[in-house]
């Protein structure tokens, strides 16, 4: 049994991952899976509507579930169903609580105070869960209808906040800006497929299509000075005004390019309609989306599914390469490789820690298998992201978090293969869980596969400088976490014998060497990139300084050890401080809001970073307790 257990764990882990690879099933009569795969252009990238729905929900409310704690069931079962209601049945979607607001003053502004905010659970079980803190006691998400009466005031406050220098904005002003940007995003999404106040857009399009030829003829006659149909011309100019507004307002661009030479330049519905005059007919995508809307509103699943089927067949002929990517992206969204890895890492961590107390071999090996599976899943996820986005693996803070976890995971597997003492698995578990949680929080900003701004748009440098320097971050963090294991295990448990302690010291030393090499080479490559694009090798920009500080810190550790200034415990203390240094270089420099590298960071990030620094300093404080008081070393001299 003991020999079988690791294999059983491995098999279960594989099943867990494989479960995500199954094709998504429809939970209703409507072919929602088919709809979620439809491609559209948004922010420079052609992505499936599934991604549009998920990312918009994350931006609006920080999660993909559309739910109100007072109800027994969620409003809808999936993000794509929410999107369908937003665009085709907005009167319904406007009642869903999808706008997250935390700021008290802003809540007051929309008239939500005191008792309004309390969640009123009907079941007593839920009430007691709330008391224990398992369920939310206050509402933090609100519907568009909640906001609608206050839009004028929100608008006024937005203008005031915009006139304030970003450094001096109050938390209320920052919250107002976030909310007004979310409201505008929601509105633009709503009218990306169907114009506002259109009771039957499909009928409108049929009529529009019918009058196209007449309008063009009338315009041509007027141009030539001949008598013309004034009625037709007036109808056309009304339509143009209406569709121009739709084009200006559009968020999603679901209509393929007019000119095949510029195939990436997909159009909005409004633009597609305006182009109909020149093309002589309404683009088939617009007709299709209108037909889908009609079927959805009239609850006609058979017609809906038939339209999806025909649409798909047409697109397979016209957009084969775009579909290959969007299909994979939907599978990627459903498989959630990073979420599943997070769970595997967490489980591996617990198994590995237990292996120090009991069944070292069995549990240690099980943990190793789980770490390996999680590593494989994150690797696959990152490869999928690279193929879909067309960039090197690290392009923003989000993907740097993924990559740091991946590097640490890989190094831990190597350590574990050499030492087989579960230390690598524990470290992999901690860093894996930590980085994936960080990544999750960073993903709330919107699409994590965004297009790269001009200066960063260089796959050569993204795949050399950024990769090496991020590897350096990952290795420095790993050394720090190994050192934390040394301190906590030695101080609090009796399980660390001399051999283990020496092994840990060798691991930390080896990883610090690795980190020095990569952070130095990465920093240098960054200098060369800067020389290529900004005209100087070294500009003392905050992010550059952050990378340099990591190099210097690793050099300090190595020199202090070579000079005999520190021994085992001193090495560990220095390595733990390496976590503080890395934390500051990785995220702290973004807090400064100066320099060429400062991009995307939130104020909640600041609190977490400070907490991380304090935690590491506290562990350093623990490490300073005299060795004779450490439980593992009591009675021995170390």
């Amino acid at each position, binding site marked *: 049994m003991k020999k079988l257990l690791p294999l059983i764990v491995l098999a279960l882990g594989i099943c867990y991952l494989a479960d995500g690879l199954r094709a998504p099933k429809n939970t209703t009569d409507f072919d929602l899976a088919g709809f979620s795969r439809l491609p559209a252009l948004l922010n420079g990238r052609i992505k499936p509507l599934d991604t549009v729905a998920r990312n918009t929900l994350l931006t609006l409310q920080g999660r993909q579930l559309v739910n109100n704690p007072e109800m027994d069931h969620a409003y809808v079962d999936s993000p794509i169903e929410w999107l369908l209601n937003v665009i085709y049945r907005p009167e319904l979607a406007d009642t869903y609580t999808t706008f997250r607001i935390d700021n008290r003053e802003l809540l007051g502004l929309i008239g939500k105070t005191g008792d309004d905010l309390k969640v009123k659970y009907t079941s007593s079980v839920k009430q007691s869960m709330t008391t224990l803190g398992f369920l939310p006691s206050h509402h933090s998400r609100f519907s568009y209808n909640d906001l609608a009466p206050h839009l004028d005031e929100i608008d006024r406050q937005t203008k005031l906040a915009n006139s304030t220098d970003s450094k001096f904005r109050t938390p209320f002003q920052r919250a107002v800006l976030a909310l007004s940007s979310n409201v505008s995003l929601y509105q633009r999404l709503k009218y990306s497929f169907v114009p506002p106040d259109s009771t039957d857009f499909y009928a409108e399009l049929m009529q529009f299509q019918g009058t196209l030829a007449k309008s063009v003829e009338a315009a041509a006659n007027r141009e030539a000075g001949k008598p013309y149909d004034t009625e037709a011309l007036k109808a056309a100019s009304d339509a143009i005004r209406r569709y121009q507004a739709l084009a200006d307002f559009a968020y999603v661009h679901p209509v393929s390019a007019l000119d095949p030479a510029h195939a990436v330049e997909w159009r909005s519905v409004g633009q597609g309609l305006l182009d109909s005059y020149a093309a002589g007919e309404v683009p088939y995508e617009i007709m299709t989306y209108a037909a889908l809307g009609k079927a959805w509103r009239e609850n006609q699943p058979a017609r809906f599914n038939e339209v999806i089927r025909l649409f798909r067949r047409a697109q397979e002929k016209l957009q084969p390469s775009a579909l290959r990517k969007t299909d994979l992206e939907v599978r990627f969204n459903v498989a959630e490789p990073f979420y599943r890895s997070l769970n595997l890492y967490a489980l591996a961590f617990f198994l590995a820690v237990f292996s120090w107390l009991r069944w070292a071999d069995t549990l240690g090996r099980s943990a190793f298998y789980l770490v390996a599976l999680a590593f494989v899943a994150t690797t696959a996820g990152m490869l999928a992201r690279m193929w879909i986005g067309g960039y090197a693996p690290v392009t923003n803070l989000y993907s740097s978090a993924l990559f740091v976890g991946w590097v640490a995971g890989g190094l831990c597997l190597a350590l574990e293969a050499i030492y087989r003492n579960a230390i690598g698995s524990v470290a992999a578990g901690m860093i894996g869980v930590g980085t994936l949680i960080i990544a999750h929080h960073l993903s709330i900003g919107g699409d994590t596969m965004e297009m790269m701004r001009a200066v960063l748009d260089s796959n050569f440098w993204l795949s050399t400088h950024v990769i090496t320097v991020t590897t350096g971050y990952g290795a420095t963090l790993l050394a720090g976490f190994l050192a934390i294991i040394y301190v906590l295990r030695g101080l609090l448990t009796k399980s660390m014998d001399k051999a283990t302690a020496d092994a840990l010291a060798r691991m930390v030393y080896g990883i610090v060497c690795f980190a020095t090499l990569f952070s130095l*080479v990465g920093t240098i490559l960054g200098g060369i990139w800067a020389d290529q694009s900004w005209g100087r090798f070294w500009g003392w920009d905050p992010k550059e300084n952050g990378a340099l500080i990591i190099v210097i810190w690793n050099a300090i550790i190595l020199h202090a050890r070579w000079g005999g200034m520190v021994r085992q415990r001193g090495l560990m203390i220095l390595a733990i401080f390496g976590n503080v240094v890395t934390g500051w270089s990785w995220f702290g420099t973004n807090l*400064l809001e100066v320099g060429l590298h400062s991009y995307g960071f939130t104020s909640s990030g600041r609190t977490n970073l400070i907490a991380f620094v304090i935690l590491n300093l506290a562990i350093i404080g623990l490490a300073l307790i005299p060795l004779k008081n450490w439980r593992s070393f009591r009675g021995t001299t170390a």
Partner: protein
Amino acid sequence: MRTFWKNSVRFFASLKLTVVLLALSMVLIFIATWDQRDLGVYLVQKKWFRSFVVVHFIGKIGFLYPGGYTLGFLLLFNLVAAHITRFKLTWKKSGIFLTHFGLILLLLGEFCSGLWQEDFSMRIDEGQTKNYAESFHFNELAVIDATDPKTDRVTAIPEQIVATQTAISHSSLPFRIEVKAYYPHAAMQLREQAANPVPQLATAGFGRRFALTPFPPPKSDDLPLPAAYLEIVGTEGSLGTFLVSAMAPQPESFVYAGRTWQLAMRPQREYKPFSLHLLKVTNDLYPGSDIPKNYASLVRLETEDGHQDQEFKIYMNNPLRFGGYTFYQYQMQAQAAEKFSVLQVVRNPSWLVPYIACALMALGLSVQFGISLFRFIDKRSRAAA
């Protein structure tokens, strides 16, 4: 005396000193990075990295800190001393030697860049040709003999001289310039709009209609806007007092001894033996977004001697290197009617040094850690056997 000498050699070559210096450098970089919030990167470099001693205030408490030059030179000294006294060149240590030698090169290279690197900017409108670049940080008083419509003869007087001297004469100028008043940073406004102007000294030119309001010099990377009241004194007496300001849209001009002269306070210029003609600027966005995809300037480069006449496309990550200068895409305006491009022009004779230094360091570290790794694997496989 002998023991003192031995002790000091041991001190300067010690690893302890290395660690202390590295730690001090780390703190230096950390504080300097925070200081960028207030000072901007140019002044931070001057204050922290290109200095021997730094005086820094946190709130009202001031303290002294060793500057970048001090730490850099001490590290260099420490490293060289260590190699002379402690290290023996063996295969086992070859990686460390390479790394350290690379580091020495890097430190010297950065020091040389600090001394020799010059940055200029070059703003060209679409369709315009320019044969000079302008300084990011310094201004000059240009006295221009504009009599010949084809070529100007310029006498450039650095702002520093205007700031410190009361009278300026030069062999190329038939008159003397007396500095009546000088302001390192001042706004130039129409008289009726100025709230708190300094006394009006201008007696000639369009400067009479304007007023100056001095401000403290900018604490960040912005170029200061100096202004001055200058009296032109010829052999027959004064020609009047003129206002020059970096904010003036055009130079003051006057006639003396049958020649037309112009006066301008402007960013320091550096003329080049070649000219750039801006053919076209492009700034593409990703479709369906406002994310910039690229910025590019198409320029035509012509040398004065007429031997070279070529087109180049300058864009992000692809500068133009020519005649010891490198031209980078810096800023641009491509959407509005008035299209222009700003190129950053850098001259840095030691630009290649970091590349060599870096290659040496990367190689050195790889060799050193590679040796350790192989030894470790070897030991383990023997232990396992």
